[in-house]
């Protein structure tokens, strides 16, 4: 087996052709992103060339973004929404998952699956009901209403965290019961501290998700001072002044995409670990 690998004649051709195709796909995939990066450094507002390196690169677009648009307000609104929603989501998930992992109650067996099935129906289908009702109650265009609408428990998160709780040995619970602890104490003193990494993942994933939420934000919010990041960026790229704002949009895209993408890159392995942990229980 250790002998030096020699190419069969056909194999070399196949390998080279594979490399070629893969490189073409990589280049075609990456170039559009590089175009956005280059546009963000291109101070000229009218000429958009096909070259990747703008002739007189500068930070003009970044300065203009903060000076002439409400980018700061959008970021502030989105951050406010994301922090509140992620905190609430983490809290609901943590205690809900405890019930499914450690307690006996009616609906334990099928309840979680039923909820996950229910949430398979995408939110866009409920927009007419939510919008019509909020309009009737005059609750539109209110950042807190938007936050409340987003604070729904996620059955999937509960399932994920339940899987994690299931891996925490029950001997710990039993020892605590011996010492006279009730369920709330077991949850608070044993399970919660041990599940911190998983809960942090839930928190950050919700946070990232809320930064890129557009559907409900655009349904509920209207006035510019309530715009979220998604709404603001949409208005930059598809408004009638879009041509003039492309450079600023590119700057905004870069500022918001880079931290979210990097954060996701770090979190994705953690969530996979959580999924695997949840699925192998004994």
């Amino acid at each position: 087996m250790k002998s030096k690998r020699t190419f069969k004649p056909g194999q070399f051709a196949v390998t080279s052709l594979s490399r070629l195709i893969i490189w073409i796909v990589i280049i075609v995939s990456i170039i559009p992103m590089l175009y956005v990066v280059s546009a963000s450094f291109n101070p000229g507002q009218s000429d958009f060339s096909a070259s990747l390196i703008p002739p007189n690169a500068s930070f003009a677009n970044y300065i203009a973004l903060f000076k002439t648009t409400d980018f700061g307000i959008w970021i502030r609104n989105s951050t406010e929404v994301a922090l509140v929603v992620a905190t609430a989501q983490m809290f609901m998930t943590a205690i809900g998952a405890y019930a499914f992992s450690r307690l006996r109650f009616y609906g334990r067996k099928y309840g979680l699956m039923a909820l996950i099935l229910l949430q398979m129906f995408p939110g866009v289908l409920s927009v007419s009901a939510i919008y019509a009702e909020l309009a009737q109650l005059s609750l539109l265009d209110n950042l807190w209403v938007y936050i409340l609408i987003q604070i729904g428990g996620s059955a999937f998160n509960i399932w994920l965290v339940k899987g994690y709780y299931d891996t925490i040995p029950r001997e710990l619970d039993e020892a605590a019961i011996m010492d006279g602890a009730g369920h709330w104490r077991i949850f608070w003193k044993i399970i919660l501290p041990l599940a911190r990494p998983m809960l942090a993942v839930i928190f950050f994933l919700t946070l990232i998700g809320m930064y890129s939420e557009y559907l409900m934000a655009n349904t509920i919010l209207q006035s510019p001072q309530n715009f979220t990041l998604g709404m603001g960026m949409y208005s930059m790229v598809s408004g009638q002044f879009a041509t003039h704002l492309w450079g600023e949009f590119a700057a905004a895209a870069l500022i918001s995409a880079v931290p979210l993408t990097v954060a996701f890159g770090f979190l994705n392995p953690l969530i996979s670990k959580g999924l695997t942990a949840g699925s192998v229980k004994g």
Partner: protein
Amino acid sequence: MCGILQTQRAENKAAPPLWKAGRVFMAIGETAVNSGNTRVKRRKKGIQWSAYGYLAPALISISVLSLAPMLYTIWISFTNWDAMHFMNYSFIGLRNYAELLNPSDPLNAVFVPTFIWTIMFALLTTVINYFAGLLLAVLLNNKNIKEAPLYRSLLIIPWAVPGLISLLSWQGLLNQSYGQINAALHLVGISAIPWLVNPFWARVSILMVNLWASYPYMMTVCTGALQSVPDELYEAAEMDGANWWQRFRFISMPSVWKVSLPLLIPSFAYSFNNFNAVYLLTGGGPARNSTPFAGYTDILASAAYKMTLTYNRYDYAATLSVILFLLVGLISWLNMQFTGAFKEVD
């Protein structure tokens, strides 16, 4: 199977564009199988009522924010609630559904072409993305390409960028007059393509951008499946004189199918209602002359959205939504039959 799990991304309620509902099914199916194997018999004891206290926040919020709007949508679809009857709408039975299905009704003129495009879009995007992902996974599964992990991480980048930002960026890149894609095409002598303003090219754009954003996911899934095939099988087949196509067809493909089929159906269901993919790129446009309610690239979900927000036709929007509820339910049910997910989850 572990490869698949490791590549799962979380479905997150707050982020439908980023995390795809389909993955949940797969993961759940996985758990169902595993927990079924190592199932421990538990003693039946009394009910712990405090459990409902722990569940209350999640249950209440899910009821109010997921269940209630769904039921309310069904109710609205039986009424004539629109801007004209905003405060005094009334129950009209199945009239909205009758209008939807009556070929001579204007609502039908929205529904039929939009419905056809919705199915076309969901089918095409699922199939194209799947085969692109499969092709790349197969190419990368070549033992002679030592740097395959590097390629994989480069290829996965489009998937990692938040969908909202990448879709909006594409909207700018594909702009007919100032977009850089046309500028690049100009370099190679292709004249400006009316990407987002011509009905045909707008549809091509949507499929193209969706491919860009989703092939990494399909590639990851197929890679996991391919790597789960033990090398001995290939070696044995080679001994028996099987050529590469036979090895691929009879050894790789069965295992790839087994893993990916349960993901293809949810992926189809997800595309069916992939509001962001359409709305953030084209806004549903270009507009049709025949009806203001839906443009050439509008799928049913985005048409319903525009009916609500732009035209205040809550009745029509709700009726379309109920049709979509039924379709999503049907597809999910089919998927459960295929994968056996949910059969035994304790």
